[in-house]
């Protein structure tokens, strides 16, 4: 094979060179055809000669198109004999193409031998020549190639991917068997909790709240509870009327033996609910207080030590035909005056309950007040627009003459006051009851005497700048002390000893110094609407009652905020009042109760006043949503008078 190939390559070369020297072909024709370098004569090209020209007489054509005749064939025997004689016969080869015999030279043979043994054809070629480095890289500082790393070094190989894909395809097709199935997952338990408790301490989750445990079953959950745990038929029926949430979830039933107990149909549902609770319910730590409720009650001083105070109803004054709006006790403590919506004002003897006097005024009395000085038995009654100053007719002749003198108004024109209040108030004589009638320009709400008994103040809530008026009885004139008031006034009170004046607006109590004519303080009550105020006889404390049932105690030296707020009543407080001598105060309310409180005010400024609720007085009946309308203390005794909407007045004694 190798020989043939060689031949072919030789012939190819010959042909190729033949084209190159076509002009010399004629000369070469004559020359020796056996010469290697000379082109072959035959021009048929590379065709299977043996096949195609088997039966022909020629083997091809020369360059001029002449047929080349086949040489006469020697028979086998002759050629053998010829070869046997010739010692060079082994190096002769028959060239089929040119139809001639070629003798290989020594070089040819050597070349062939080298080729066969896999070496280079020519012996002079050195395959292991010394490497000559043509580049100088010493002292150059750069690598041979400065090109950046190519991208292909970083991306997965495409070729490998293809190979893997082919593998995958084979695996999927089932040609390559996948390893057998993963074994049935067996839980391999081991000793999870070692003994290292210290390290466990560190691992403890902060802020973790464990789920609360389920409630343990009680007797009623038993399959065979005692009879008292089983609800009766009516009770079970009554559950149907309850709201869904209130209905008991579990109705106890009794089974007479264990074998008759059925499967509980809600067990899966209850477990599910528990699961939901565990992962959906927010958890917080709740402090459960486990104390006796009695311990929450404040330690109050015993009531026995705080006696006397009014406790029981002792007398009832009857006679009024309508709700008794107001009451007042005279400074001597003998007489009680009351005003009612039935248009009368009455005077009672306290000890006996006898009605001494009745004034038929014809208008509802809103407020009534005795003059605080004993030798001026004058009664001030507030009607709608008027204030009446009436002579009660008590006392000896001396006092009576003086009183009558006092209650005499001269010419109506002369009493007119100068200034702005000219039109506000007019003093005039009341003919019918022999007193003074002070006519106001708008409705009057309250009246309050000064402790000296000469001055008194009236409040006209809608009076704007003339809302608070101060009247002087001896001179029969009226004055308006304030040019402007912050808000609508409710009541106004004089300080018992100092020249200080309190005006209650809806939510605040303004404290004015009358001598300087300026505001000293503003007390913030924090209630919605003040209904009445009362000043402690000492003058440093004040209580305020509100329409929401709250009562505020102010210590004027302490703060402008209440020292204590008491929520006593469920309805409006109509009146709060201090006792003049005893450490008592009281509140009356529309919820038909009156509260009696003890209040000790200490002369030591560091000690806070002691307030103790003492007694709840009941007895009045509600009428048209109103209960107790007024309450007043007796000036000397620890007795309380209350006036009710049920047209009675009650006296509570100790």
């Amino acid at each position, binding site marked *: 094979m190798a020989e043939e190939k060689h031949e072919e390559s030789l012939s190819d070369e010959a042909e190729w060179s033949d084209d190159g020297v076509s002009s010399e072909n004629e000369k070469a024709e004559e020359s020796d055809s056996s010469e290697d370098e000379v082109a072959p004569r035959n021009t048929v090209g590379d065709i299977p000669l043996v096949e195609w020209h088997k039966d022909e007489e020629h083997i091809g054509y020369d360059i001029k198109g002449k047929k080349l005749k086949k040489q006469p064939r020697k028979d086998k025997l002759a050629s053998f004999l010829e070869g046997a004689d010739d010692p060079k016969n082994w190096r002769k080869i028959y060239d089929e193409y040119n139809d001639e015999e070629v003798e290989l030279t020594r070089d040819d043979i050597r070349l062939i031998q080298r080729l066969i043994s896999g070496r280079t054809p020519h012996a002079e070629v050195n395959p292991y020549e010394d490497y000559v480095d043509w580049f100088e890289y010493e002292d150059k500082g750069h690598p041979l190639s400065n090109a950046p790393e190519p991208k292909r070094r970083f991306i997965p190989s495409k070729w490998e991917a293809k190979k893997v894909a082919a593998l995958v395809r084979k695996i999927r097709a089932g040609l390559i068997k996948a390893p057998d199935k993963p074994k049935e997952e067996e839980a391999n338990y*081991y000793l999870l909790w070692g003994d290292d408790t210290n390290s466990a301490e560190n691992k403890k989750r902060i802020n973790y709240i464990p789920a609360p445990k389920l409630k343990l079953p009680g007797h009623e959950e038993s399959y065979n509870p005692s009879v008292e745990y089983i609800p009766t038929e009516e009770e079970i029926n009554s559950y149907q009327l309850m709201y869904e949430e209130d209905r008991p979830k579990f109705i106890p039933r009794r089974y007479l*033996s264990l074998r008759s107990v059925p499967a509980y149909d809600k067990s899966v549902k209850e477990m599910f609910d528990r699961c939901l609770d565990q992962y959906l319910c927010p958890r917080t730590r709740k402090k459960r207080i486990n104390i006796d409720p009695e311990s929450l009650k404040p330690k109050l001083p015993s009531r026995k030590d705080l006696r006397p105070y009014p406790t029981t109803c002792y007398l009832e004054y009857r006679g009024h035909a309508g709700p008794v709006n107001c009451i007042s006790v005279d400074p001597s403590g003998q007489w009680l005056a009351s005003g009612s919506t039935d248009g009368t004002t009455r005077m009672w003897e306290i000890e006996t309950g006898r009605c001494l006097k009745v004034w038929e005024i014809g208008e509802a009395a809103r407020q009534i007040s005795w003059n605080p000085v004993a030798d001026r038995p004058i009664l001030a009654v507030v009607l709608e627009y008027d204030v009446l100053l009436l002579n009660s007719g008590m006392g000896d002749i001396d006092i009576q003459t003086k009183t009558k003198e006092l209650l005499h108004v001269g010419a109506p024109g002369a009493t007119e006051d100068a200034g702005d209040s000219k039109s506000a108030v007019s003093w005039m004589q009341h003919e019918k009851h022999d007193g003074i009638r002070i006519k106001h320009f708008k409705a009057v709400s309250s009246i309050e005497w000064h402790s000296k008994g000469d001055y008194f103040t009236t409040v006209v809530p809608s009076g704007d700048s003339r809302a608070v008026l101060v009247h002087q009885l001896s001179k029969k004139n009226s004055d308006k002390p304030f040019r402007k008031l912050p808000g609508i006034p409710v009541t106004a009170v004089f300080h018992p000893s100092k020249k200080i004046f309190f005006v209650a607006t809806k939510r605040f109590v303004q404290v004015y110094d009358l001598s300087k004519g300026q505001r000293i303080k503003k007390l913030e009550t924090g209630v919605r609407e003040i209904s009445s105020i009362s000043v402690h006889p000492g003058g440093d404390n004040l209580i305020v009652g509100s329409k929401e049932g709250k009562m505020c105690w102010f210590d004027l030296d302490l703060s402008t905020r209440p020292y204590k707020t008491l929520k006593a009543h469920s309805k409006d407080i109509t009146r709060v009042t201090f006792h003049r001598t005893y450490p008592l105060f009281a509140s009356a309310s529309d919820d038909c109760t009156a509260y009696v409180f003890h209040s000790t005010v200490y002369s030591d400024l560091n000690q806070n006043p002691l307030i103790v609720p003492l007694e709840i007085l009941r007895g009045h009946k509600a009428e048209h949503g109103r209960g107790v309308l007024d309450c007043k203390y007796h000036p000397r005794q620890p007795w309380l008078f209350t006036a009710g909407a049920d047209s009675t007045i009650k006296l509570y004694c100790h």
Partner: protein
Amino acid sequence: MPPKHYRPAGKKKEGNAAKYITRTKAIKYLQVSLRVFRKLCILKGIFPRVPKKKFEGNHKTYYSTKDINFLLHEPLLEKLRQRRAHEKKVKRAKARKNKELAERLLNRMPGYKLDTLILERYPTFIDAIRDMDDCLTMVHLFASLPAVEGERIQVNRIHKCRRLSHEWQAYICRTHSLRKTFISVKGVYYQAEVQGQKITWLTPHALQQVLTQDVDFNIMLTFLEFYEALLGFVNFKLYHSINVKYPPILDSRLEALAAELYALFRYVATGSARKPVETQTSGLIEEKKDTEEKMDPSVDESELRLAQLQHQLPSNEPGTLMQLLEDSNTNDDDDDEDPDTKECRTLFKSLKFFLSREVPREALLFIIPAFGGVVSWEGEGAPFKETDEDIAYQIVDRPTQGHKFLSRHYVQPQWVFDCINARIILPTDAYLVGMVPPPHLSPFVDDEAEGYVPEYGETIKRLQTAAKKNVMPLPDLGNQDIADPQSLLAQGIIDRTQANEAAEERRKLLLLEKQYHDELKKEMSGTTYSSSLSNKNSENTGSDEMQHQDEDMVPVSTEKDDEDNRAKLYMSRKKKGLFEAMEISNQRKKSKVELLKERKRKAESSKTG
């Protein structure tokens, strides 16, 4: 110092908005679906919180930001994502009808383990034990569900639950740590004490359970997944502590007979180094028993005899007997055992029980050995037959019993439970076959707090004290009770509330008596009734002392009311609210007790009338 509003760079918020995160935001933050989030929360034990201020609205669920970050760094999250991706592949394969591929993929689902989670949630073993209640209840519930192919719950999970629950019961039984049992309508409650922790669980009655439609089983199964792992590890630790190999290898014959529990008992008994005597006296393992008896026959025999003696003479010198028993106990078993366990271990000591067919076998097979008894049942694989002469009690739950052995008591199953709760062997008269047993009472009720003790509870208490003090139970506690409630209280026969009631009654009686004496005196002195009344009136206005007396005459209720009102007036609003709430709850409790008493009275009157 930086100003108050200063916030360091990179810190975005502070206050509630930084501490808490709403659920929707948490899900977005974690980039998971709600379902995966739920699963994570369940497995990690994360629950919503209540921020002080609900900054995003009242109706939202808030989680602690720390908890959510805790979830974010959880390797399980990544595992779950992988699973999700894998599920998608399976789905795709199924959609392409490539069944084979789907199956192959399903087999290669990435798995995860919960051991790290368990250790994280319960760093110490005690923590895990403390939280076993829900775990056990859940596993026992699933163990009782129908193991049917094609239901929503896989059969192998139910079997696993069964196995785990039996393993737990075997441990409890072996260590005699069961304390209380209670048959309720919902199932049987058990309370055990393991390492000082009280664990209560509920097993449903062994009947076909109903799978309701309104339950999301995915959630329950997620919980179950965690509980299975937890119970497995806890069981391992517990078995390890008593030197038994875990997981146990069971006797295949007994397993086939569905007596796994018994098989487990035998495994635990034989596997442990300390061999309990009582489980090995069973008939199946005769040879062992023989060898055992040969080894120390004297102790065993004496013990047996003592126990028999004690049983025959229930109230005759138990103190000395107890002492003797204790002596023998110290010989053969551990000395460091606490007295409670000892009491439980010896309750049914050397008593043989036999269960009839109709009796709930699993529960009784669990509790009787737990209290030291030996038990057998009707059926194959039972340790001894019904004809065994030594059987002391046969548990029967049928209307009539045909053939009766004279040597044994025939009792209803409730007797066993009541005995266990009372810790004494009760007289069997009330529990005989065909009778309606006495009421079954819950051992979990604190009588003191409840304020009411059912009648049978008192009977049991009396029996207990009798057994303790060697005092014969009084036939009827009548007027003597009222006479001196304090002494009875000291004895522990009646509780405090009753004592108070009795004292009240006594006071009233005394008052009446006094009044009677006063009137007698007046009659003697000759004053008429009307004059005495007028006397009172005159006294009224008089001295203070008399008024004080008068005040006592005011109806008690209004005075008390006023007193309350007065006190309330002075309380702060917060305290007032608290006080009122307490009053309401007390009132409710009282009315409940009143209702019970009323019902009881009615029932009694109807019975007699």
